[in-house]
């Protein structure tokens, strides 16, 4: 029969075009994405037509404006009840507008906003040939150390392209957690991945490492997205559709859409399970869960630090959003299949991240591994498979992203002749040199370690509580053990900063412009507020914890 159906499709396609019903798009509800996407396009035009001198300012202005506007739109939608009562699926079933989506998009936007501030920072490095410089290469295309590069530096070029790239990435991230069919998921993934690959490559200092990071990230990212795509294909083959709703219904058997031919050849659910596993792998790669984590330390170390902070925060938020939606909306019927698997992943991620971090000597790699361990904690919350699990993960993501960006922002401040001094030995005695910076960084570290009165503790407690409630007590124990291990290396850095004598050739702490200062202050503020009085945000997360189906 199938051949007939296909033929009939061809014939209907032969009808006059105006018969095709125009897709119904809710522009207001998609406005956050559209704003950022639009701004991205505009800033490409800016790159094309605005004179070089004016580009930096116009780009910064444009990006900030776009992000603020998008966030305002989110708030408007949330106030309009799209997060709860009016939550529904927009754009012909492509994009969900519901609590989790809005919450995560809001988080992504705020994180990106402060991240963009660090992008725009131009006071850390001394002016080069009288031109202010930021963390990005004068001309990314130029070969490192080549005559061309020197010329570009002399001319005071700067890679203002980072702003449009960032905006594209952000728009992709905004769609990712809201994607309501697998195709949108895949496209969104690529939309935010590709710009990130490029952003990794354009560091000003240590360009070789930067490019290497980009290559690794790109190849592995493409590799993983290929798996994701094949998984999607299999799921499509299983359910005959890529829309979450349909797949979910097929999975829990309310409609049996499986082609009998498939059914008997492929055997019961092999398609479903294998497909699920491969999609999962694609997402776990972005999350940086063991054993799909190995790109993380290298990329985090090589990429320009502002980009690293941006990636570490925003990518995680987006990826976890997508993961939550996949597990809770598409495969609730499969809970008993995926839970044990995720248990394993969570455990190895928590322990692996914490243990390997102990022997790291580079602050950025250290933070990379810490982010892996945190991914493990978050997975524990995901596994809870309860509303409180969702809300706890949402809260944790919010708390964590600000700590991360703040921490990396501090890393950008500690510099010596070779740019940022990321080797731990250089950080010795920082507390004596500049107590304030060291204290701030200590606050972030304590938050990472989950010491009470910091956001890290509230978040950790929330996810562990959810996990225990969801019957994953063993995970909590493992989590506790690994946080004990993790505590060790956070403490090590603090010891280094405060208790060891400063070295003579130690790094200097650059005095940042208001931009970075705002970023760091925001980080500290969020850390302490979420630590002392998290209730309001917990409520927010709880309200936002129901997915639309």
């Amino acid at each position, binding site marked *: 029969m199938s051949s007939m159906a296909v033929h009939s499709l061809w014939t209907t396609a032969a009808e006059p075009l105006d018969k095709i019903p125009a897709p119904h798009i809710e522009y207001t509800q998609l406005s956050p994405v559209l704003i950022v996407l639009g701004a991205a396009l505009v800033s490409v035009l800016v790159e094309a037509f605005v004179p070089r001198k004016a580009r930096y300012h116009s780009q910064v202005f444009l990006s900030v404006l776009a992000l603020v506007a998008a966030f305002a739109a989110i708030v408007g939608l949330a106030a309009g009840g799209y997060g709860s009562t009016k939550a529904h699926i927009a754009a012909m079933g492509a994009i969900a507008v519901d609590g989790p989506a809005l919450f995560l998009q809001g988080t992504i936007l705020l994180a990106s906003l402060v991240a963009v501030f660090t992008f725009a920072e131009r006071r850390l490095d001394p002016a080069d040939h009288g031109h202010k410089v930021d963390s990005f290469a004068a001309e990314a295309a130029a070969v490192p150390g080549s005559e061309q590069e020197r010329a570009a530096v002399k001319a005071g070029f700067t890679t203002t392209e980072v702003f449009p790239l960032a905006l594209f990435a952000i728009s992709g991230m905004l769609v990712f957690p809201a994607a309501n069919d697998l195709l949108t998921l895949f496209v969104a993934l690529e939309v935010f991945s590709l710009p990130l690959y490029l952003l990794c490559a354009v560091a000003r200092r240590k360009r070789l490492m930067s490019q290497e990071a980009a290559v690794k990230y790109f190849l*592995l990212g493409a590799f993983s997205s290929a798996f994701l795509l094949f998984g999607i294909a299999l799921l499509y083959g299983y359910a005959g559709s890529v829309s979450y709703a349909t797949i979910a219904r097929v999975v829990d058997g309310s409609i049996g859409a499986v082609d009998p031919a498939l059914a008997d050849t492929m055997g019961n659910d092999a398609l479903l399970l294998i497909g699920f596993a491969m999609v999962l792998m694609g997402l776990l790669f972005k999350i940086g869960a063991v*054993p799909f984590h*190995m790109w993380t*330390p290298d990329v985090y170390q090589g990429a320009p630090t502002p980009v690293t902070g941006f990636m570490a925060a925003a990518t995680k938020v987006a990826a976890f959003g997508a993961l939550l939606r996949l597990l809770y909306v598409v495969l609730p019927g499969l809970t008993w*299949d995926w839970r044990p698997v995720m248990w394993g992943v969570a455990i190895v991620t928590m322990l692996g991240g914490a243990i390997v971090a*102990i022997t790291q000597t580079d602050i950025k790699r250290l933070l990379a591994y810490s982010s892996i361990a945190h991914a493990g904690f978050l997975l524990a919350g995901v596994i809870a498979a309860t509303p409180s699990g969702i809300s706890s993960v949402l809260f944790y993501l919010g708390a964590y992203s600000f700590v991360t960006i703040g921490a990396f922002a501090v890393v950008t401040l500690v510099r010596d002749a070779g740019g940022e001094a990321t080797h731990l030995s250089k950080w010795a005695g920082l507390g004596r040199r500049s107590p304030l910076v060291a204290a701030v960084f200590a606050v972030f570290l304590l938050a990472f370690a989950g010491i009470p009165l910091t956001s890290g503790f509230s978040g950790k407690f929330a996810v562990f509580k959810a996990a225990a409630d969801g019957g994953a007590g063993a995970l909590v124990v493992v989590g506790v053990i690994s946080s004990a291990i993790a505590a060790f290396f956070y403490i090590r850095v603090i010891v280094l900063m405060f208790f060891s004598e400063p070295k003579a050739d130690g790094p200097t702490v650059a005095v940042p412009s208001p931009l970075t200062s705002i970023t760091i202050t925001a980080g500290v503020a969020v850390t302490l507020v979420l630590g002392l009085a998290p209730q309001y945000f917990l409520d927010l997360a709880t309200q936002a914890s129901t997915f639309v189906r």
Partner: protein
Amino acid sequence: MENLIALLIGAPLLGAAVLLLGGRRLDKSGHWLGTLLAAVSFVIGLVLFADMLGKSADDRALHQTLYTWIPVEGFQADMAFQLDQLSMTFVLLITGVGTLIHVYSIGYMEHDERRRRFFGYLNLFVAAMLLLVLADNYLLLYFGWEGVGLASYLLIGFWQHKPSAATAAKKAFIVNRVGDMGLSIAIMIMFTTFGTFTFGPVLAATGEASEGKLTAIGLMLLLAACGKSAQVPLQSWLGDAMEGPTPVSALIHAATMVTAGVYLIVRSADIFNAAPDAQLVVTVVGAVTLLFGAIVGCAKDDIKKALAGSTMSQIGYMILAAGLGPIGYVFAIMHLVTHGFFKAGLFLGAGSVMHGMNDEVDMRRYGGLRKYMPVTFITFGLGYLAIIGFPGLSGFFSKDKIIEAAFAKGGTEGWILGTVTLIGAAITAYYMTRVMLMTFFGEKRWQDDENGRPPHPHESPRSMVIPMVLLAVGSVAAGALFEFSGFVEWLEPVTGFAHGHSPISAAAVTTATIAVMVLGVGLAYVQYGRRPVPVVAPRGSLLTRAARRDLLQDDFNHAVFVTGGTHLTRSLVYVDHSLVDGVVNGTAAAVGGLSGRLRKLQNGYARTYAVSMFGGTAVLIAATLLMRAV
């Protein structure tokens, strides 16, 4: 009247506080203040004594409750005092002898720039000792018990710059602590048995307690007594305690504190009466100690150490008597008091001798001193006669009674104990005569002291002489006084009294006592009176050498406890560092090593990373399928 009891303790306590906190400005007047307050306490004692005599024998006991010391659910310790005939006896002895020795010290310590503190400590001791004998419950007694321990620690180590003194002080305190352990355990048993540890109720209720419990309590009390009264096996500290200034030796380590053990046992008479096994142990300890002390006393050339051995032995008599039960308690106390007089007198005499001989203590370097310090000679001589039990003097009466009682114990143990006491009497006579001869008779064997000053013996100042005289009077008269003034009836209401029925007549015992006394004296005279005393001690027989070393008992302690303890602590320190700590550090190291190994996987090759991803996916798929399969 009973309100005076607190004052009794308060006066010397005040003295101690003022003298110790007062600072240098009291250096001039301090000793007078201290002496005065001790005297005040003595006077109050006399007043109370007079009042007590005025009452009928049965309601002589006074009680004073100040406040509740430790009020805890089911556990009541009162700051309350009980003054009965027994306590009264001690009060008079302590304050009386104490005052005399305060006076003596004024002269003896004249040239010591820390004299003020010395008197502070003395007052502290008097206060604590009074608390000990006046307490109306065992916990408060324990307070005083450790208080005198502290005072003795401070006074033995008064010349702290001398390492030997410091060591002796520490040793005394720690050995005493072992005894104190016994006392506190005894109190615990009482608390769990009777629910209280106040004398009245406890002693009244002994009838209802099981004998096992009472024996346990009794033995624990005995342990305490051994510590405080330097009885075997806890006697080792007393000899070293002679490092302290001589007045201290006289007051604390002869007359009063060391007799606290006897007080404790007599005070707990009802408990021991109901626990014969405990009593037996008490008598054994007493017997062993009296021989032990006597033998040691024979071998020592240090005059104070010889006297210390004698003290040990005499207290052995008392403990033995106390162990005999109702037939002995009274005589134990009686001997205690008389001993308090003559032994204090002897020590003061010794002090006076040393005072004249540049603090030389080796009797082999004395000799012929009777011409140079006649008063000391006479007083010391009277004390000597008293202790060897010369008929008519105090020691005669008290010791004779104990020997009688020992025989009266009856049965084989009666015979054994009696014989032991007799032998003891003989040895006492021997070593005391030895002391007497070596010190006051024979030719001069004086030596220059370390900084070459030749000794120029002279009679001590009046402040030192008067107390010696008074004590001599006491040691002469006390015995007869007690004998004929009804000391027995006086104490009976408290301690109870039963006439022993000795298998041999009192007269026989008396003659035997006198006989052995003469024997001992004669032997000593033959050895030390007839032929000259070598300045350097001869090697001597095995026994002598052992006795010089406290019959090796001290060496035993050192080998077992000191050396063994040191090794134990050393090894524990090692264990703590390498085992207890090592486990933790080991875990940390293990995690670190694991980390280092895992880290190697991150080799920087993109292809390796891809492999791990590929493998991970494979595992993921396999696991998912597996989950469905099972």
